[in-house]
């Protein structure tokens, strides 16, 4: 449990891990240990990495309409295995945002669990081909996944068209990331896309 754990701690905290016995760090260590144990129990092949089948073995995830897309979010482009670091990196998007959290000094990039990055995660669930635009087809695909067979193609098509119409400001018939942010500016993203640990 040595080195990978420390590197993951870095990802998790998005900053330099404080070496002093800060009670907040006890919590972080506890969370990481728990998640490592969870990773281990999901890894049936015991090869230090998870495959898509390992995720699909979770019944609650298998019945989630967006289950496959969420599983995809863990795997980097073209790869079939995700190691613990990758696992933690994806989960780090869902850390709750604390008010007193600021960038730790020379860290110029945003932490993974900022509002922007949470929205980017959601955006990527729609934008399958990673061209930074949600086209009508991509929107239809996600809609179809969520409603199953209960709504007709025409109705679904009109829902998609209306959504794009409302969100599209530059007239290119697709939704870019900035348009996406604008549509969701009043939604409490920080709370809805966070997972809280029990102590």
């Amino acid at each position, binding site marked *: 449990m040595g080195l990978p*754990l420390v590197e993951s701690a870095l990802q998790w905290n998005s900053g330099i891990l404080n070496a002093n*016995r800060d009670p907040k760090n006890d919590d972080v*260590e*506890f969370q*990481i*240990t*728990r*998640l490592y*144990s*969870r990773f281990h*129990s*999901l890894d049936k092949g015991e090869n230090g990495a998870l495959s898509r089948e390992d*995720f*699909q*073995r*979770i*019944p*609650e*995830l*298998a*019945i*989630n*309409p*967006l*289950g496959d897309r*969420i599983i995809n979010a863990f795997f980097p482009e073209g790869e079939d295995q995700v190691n613990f670091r990758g696992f933690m990196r994806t*989960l780090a998007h*869902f850390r709750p945002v604390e008010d007193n959290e600021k960038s730790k000094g020379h860290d110029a990039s945003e932490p993974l669990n900022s509002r922007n990055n949470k929205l980017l*995660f*959601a955006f990527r*669930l*729609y934008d399958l081909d990673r061209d930074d635009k949600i086209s009508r087809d991509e929107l239809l695909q*996600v*809609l179809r996944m*969520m*409603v*199953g*067979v*209960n*709504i007709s193609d025409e*109705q679904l098509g009109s*829902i*998609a068209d*209306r*959504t794009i119409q409302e*969100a599209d400001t530059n007239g290119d018939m697709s939704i870019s990331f900035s348009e*996406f942010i604008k*549509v*969701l500016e*009043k*939604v*409490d*993203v920080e709370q*809805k*896309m*966070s*997972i*809280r*640990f*029990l102590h």
Partner: protein
Amino acid sequence: MKTLLKIFEWATLRIERGAKERNHPVYKPYTNGIIAKEPTSLVEEMTEIRRSGSNRDLDGAFEMSDIFYFCRRGLESIVDDEVTKRFSAEELESWNLLTRSNYNFQHISTRLTVLWGLGVFIRYGFLLPLRVTLAFTGVSCLVVLTTLVGYLPSGRVKNFLSETAHLMCYRICVRALTAIITYHHSENKPKNGGICVANHTSPIDVIILASDGCYAMVGQTHGGLMGFIQRAMVRACPHIWFERSEVKDRHLVAKRLSDHVQDKSKLPILIFPEGTCINNTSVMMFKKGSFEIGCTVYPVAIKYDPRFGEAFWNSSKYGMVNYLLRMMSSWAIVCSVWYLPPMSREEGEDAVQFANRVKAAIARQGGLVDMLWDGGLKRGKVKDTFKEEQQKLYSKILVGTQEDRSRS
């Protein structure tokens, strides 16, 4: 017993202290789950998201923020889900000096290691050989006595002798495992012409129940040693053994069970409706087959105390022999058995509802979590119908209120 418990608690505290001194992260098991899950439903949460977003109620239009709900639920289930943790042994709050249940196995102090070493010596050097001998005696007695009884003509004497023989041998087996069993509400013990249902944690359940009363067992015929034992038992009193091919035929199974039940002189049938071993923290879906027969059902709740020995059989990890060895080298198997008052199917209740009612009663008595998931998920995939239910619910949100609008 109490001294043993005190020693366990001391051992855990020692580990925690040692770990803090060296800045090692200590693994803390939490039985209530590690993340805070809000028990809101799909509808409630969608309303909340939309209301905060655009000051509109659920008025049938799709919102891009709808995926947040599914997204978060999905991630929550990846971090901690309710089902997969039921198929591995329960985590203990304090260490019981067995390596197998220790997640922080590092050298903490000499005193602790010495204590652990002493424990190993006692368990493997002293308890284990004693128990193995007892087990052998018990099983061979069972075979010999039941065969002897089988030669007698049918009648009251035969039944009486067969019951005595069975009880005696099972009690020897119970000693062989050092099982300390507390029976509650023995006035509700199953009577002839009924079915006894219980939650299933391990094959030991059979021995525990059978040492307190006589039951007719149900199961598949095996070859080899198990088959030999089965054939011997059948000679003394009627058990129900199925051929492998007959198991698939549900009508045949139901008919044989109901025939047995209608004969009042035959012993109550013992059935485990979950169909597989669950780790004793929850009760999973009961298969409705045994509840369709229409006779009195006697529910029994079995709860093991895992601090002295983990009774759950993780059949994907350990084989039978390995499992028995682990059982016999633990401190003891401590469990409580509650006999619940008999239940029958009420008017207007179908088999599934009846099964759920019995399940809820067992779960409540044993302090277990009542779950709707199928125990078959241990090995199989989940049915698509559950996903379709969620999709239907969401579609209603999208479309349902639109119909109201077009009407007005």
